[in-house]
């Protein structure tokens, strides 16, 4: 049989039918949709939010499945087939212009989400998501309900914690900002309250902290750290006013702990996925030096290997007079290792500790 229109059409139709059988019908028949251990049906409000999610085209930028290789999601749970049995149509997505949302429910508080939809840059200053301030009140409730249900039973658990702590934080906030600050500090484990910032508040550290602050914190806590950023009006309780903290003799570890884990129940998210340890310490230095006005780093006399890169620049230390030296350091009595040179910018005069970073660096 030669290549005639009929033979070509017949051949192609056969191939297409076979392919449809092999990759469409067979998978559907061979894998029934059985529920996974976390899935649950949508509530009517969540369903309404889902429709809004589809209509707004959110799927263009947000995926809804976690792959085995996704390192950037700390609560890594690889998505399963059974997670999607209530999804029609599916919203797996194909681009991560924005983050994956399959476990987004309960990761942020409702008011964080409200501020984020009003203008994503309020809470995520480098975001390129468009504003959804045109949503009506009802639509806003629906879309937030949908986002907060992603992760299903896992999300419900997180939301229950959010709601529980939200009530308590509100009660504390009503007693006034100072009471609130003390209340929040009490929630931080003791060892973190007394832990000084292991990174000296050098110019470099504070500069890096400023950069991080501008990318993560600025529109809630405000450019001067008074908690009056543009997002503040959507948030309840309001963002922390750092300038109130001066009289408390709290250490850098307190800031670190709160930034790392967030404050469940408030709009303060956790940053342990976004920021590495050193960057959180840097931002703690920036906040301490610029807003609290009290340096809470480990001071000049480093207790560890002194050959670090952060040599003091003449005239810049101490950044705040009298800072650091009184910071309580737990542990055995400190042996003061050769002083960090205060006159020479080069740390060359300090002997390199064995195994420490060499001077060449």
């Amino acid at each position: 049989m030669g290549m005639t229109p009929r033979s070509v059409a017949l051949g192609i139709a056969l191939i297409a039918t076979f392919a449809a059988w092999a990759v469409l019908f067979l998978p559907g028949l061979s894998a029934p949709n059985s529920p996974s251990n976390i899935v649950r049906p949508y509530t009517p409000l969540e369903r309404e939010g889902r429709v809004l999610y589809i209509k707004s085209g959110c799927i263009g930028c947000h995926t809804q499945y976690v792959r085995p290789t996704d390192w950037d999601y700390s609560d890594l749970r690889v998505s399963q087939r059974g997670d999607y049995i209530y999804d029609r149509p599916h919203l797996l997505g194909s681009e991560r212009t924005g983050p994956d949302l399959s476990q987004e429910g309960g990761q942020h508080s409702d008011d964080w989400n409200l501020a984020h939809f009003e203008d994503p840059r309020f809470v995520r200053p480098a975001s390129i998501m468009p504003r959804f301030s045109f949503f009506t009140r009802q639509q806003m409730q629906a879309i937030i309900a949908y986002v907060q249900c992603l992760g299903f039973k896992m999300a419900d658990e997180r939301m229950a914690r959010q709601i529980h702590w939200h009530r308590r934080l509100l009660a504390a906030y009503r007693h006034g900002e100072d009471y609130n600050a003390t209340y929040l500090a009490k929630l931080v484990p003791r060892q973190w309250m007394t832990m000084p910032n292991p990174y000296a508040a050098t110019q470099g550290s504070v500069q890096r902290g400023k950069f991080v602050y501008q990318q993560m914190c600025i529109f809630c806590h405000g450019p001067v750290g008074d908690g009056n950023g543009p997002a503040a009006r959507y948030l309840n309780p309001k963002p922390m006013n750092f300038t109130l903290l001066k009289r408390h003799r709290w250490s850098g570890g307190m800031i670190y702990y709160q930034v790392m884990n967030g404050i469940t129940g408030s709009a303060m998210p956790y940053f342990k996925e976004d920021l590495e340890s050193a960057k959180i310490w840097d931002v703690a230095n920036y906040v301490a030096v610029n807003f609290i006005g009290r340096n809470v780093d480990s001071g000049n006399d480093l207790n560890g290997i002194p050959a670090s890169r952060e040599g003091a620049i003449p005239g810049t230390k101490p950044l705040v007079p009298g800072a650091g030296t009184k910071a309580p350091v737990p542990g055995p009595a400190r042996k003061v290792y050769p002083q960090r040179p205060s006159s020479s910018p080069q740390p060359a005069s300090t002997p390199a500790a064995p195994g420490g970073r060499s001077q060449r660096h």
Partner: protein
Amino acid sequence: MAFRFIDTTPGSTARRFVISGAWWFVAGGVVGLTAATELVAPDLIGARVLIFPRIRPVHVNTIVFFFLSMMLIGAMLYAVCRLARRPLYSEKMGNVAMWIWNFSVLAGLLTIPAGFTTSHEYGEYVFPISVAIIVAIFMLTINVFQTLARRAEQLLYVTNWYAVGAFTATLIVFFFGKVMWHPKTSAMVGINDAEWAWFYGHNVFGTWITPLALGLAYFWVPREADNPLYSHAISLLGFWPYFAFYLQVGTHHLIEAPAQPWLKLIAEVNSVGLLIPVYAFLTNQWMTLRGRWWKIPDSVVLKFIFAGTIMYFFTSSEGTIEALPSFERIAHFTNVTVGHAHLGLLGFAGFIACGAGYGVLREMYGEIWSERLAQLQYWLMLIGIIGFTFVLTSVGLLQGLAWRNGETVYRVLPEIFSYYVERGVFGCFILTGAGIQVYNFLKTVYARRRRSEEEFFGLERAAAAPAALTGMAGD
């Protein structure tokens, strides 16, 4: 000559399809450039219907279904008629299909931003619009089959195989893949839905855009190079395996999604197998050009199509590599995919569509209004697409490796900002090319006298067609 809604003069369907496609290229390009700008300046347009997520599918669908589909259909109808040595079976039916197609696009342009979408990629149009498009494809299929049934040239040239294959397979793929029997959502449930959607989504290119473009390359390269086709045996090797492999690769979009492992394996194996027909096709085209490379600079048609075949090499090879899990882990979800899609659709299919479009108008009107403008368009689009692909591939690898390093999507955003700016700049090149094209097309149509039917079918250029068929004797 007064404008007639249904024009029954020979060639009118092909011409109108080509010119509509050129218009939609500009429209889709403007939408695309707006979307690209919004990635840099998200607050640029506050209107809810013009935010990025709502206009991105408009850009994709306008380019795929309207710029590419319409120009390729037009050029393919022309090629089918020339190879059959017969006018189109029914210009009337063709014109109706053309109007249905154009109005669907307009409906799509309005409905997607208004929020009527299925949320299936490449299939965002809601049920009624999909039905309208399928009806139009069905009418065109009948037209092509009837024209071929009345052909004066007994042997069926390769281009016709691709035309028949594309129309047949697309009808089947659209019928299944759009999940037509669920008008409200056009969707199945859960992962099944993803598998069906990607069967459709990938085969929009596999059975529709690409075969039409390949067929047109087979038509124009031997004609423009004045050389018979290198080998018809290789054409066969490029044709059957192409459809056999391509129709099963859709699941490679879901390699790390919770789809069945065996299904992913099928997709991966077929993605690798797809290299055979791709390289067979390329061998055939480039060997046809042997000894005739000097023809390329002279003919803007050949220039476009030759560039298209080169980009086909890159995009197909890249596609296979992307389907392999080891690379997929880095490239998936990033802009590598976006770069790949642009290289494939604009670089390969788009260049062939533009070249074939110029070819059709040149043969219908004797010459193109301005060859120099066409050359300028070629270079603008070439710089645009190469720069675009380079930028997007770089930024995609940057994203993928950063994520693998544990950085969050948000943290990487400031790092890729400047790449997004550059992408917009290269987009301007492409859009300028599109504008030049539509101007040149319209000038050709309005400034040149159309050839009469006798001229149209009796010109010396037609001699090139049988020359291309000489290798066919043994079939």
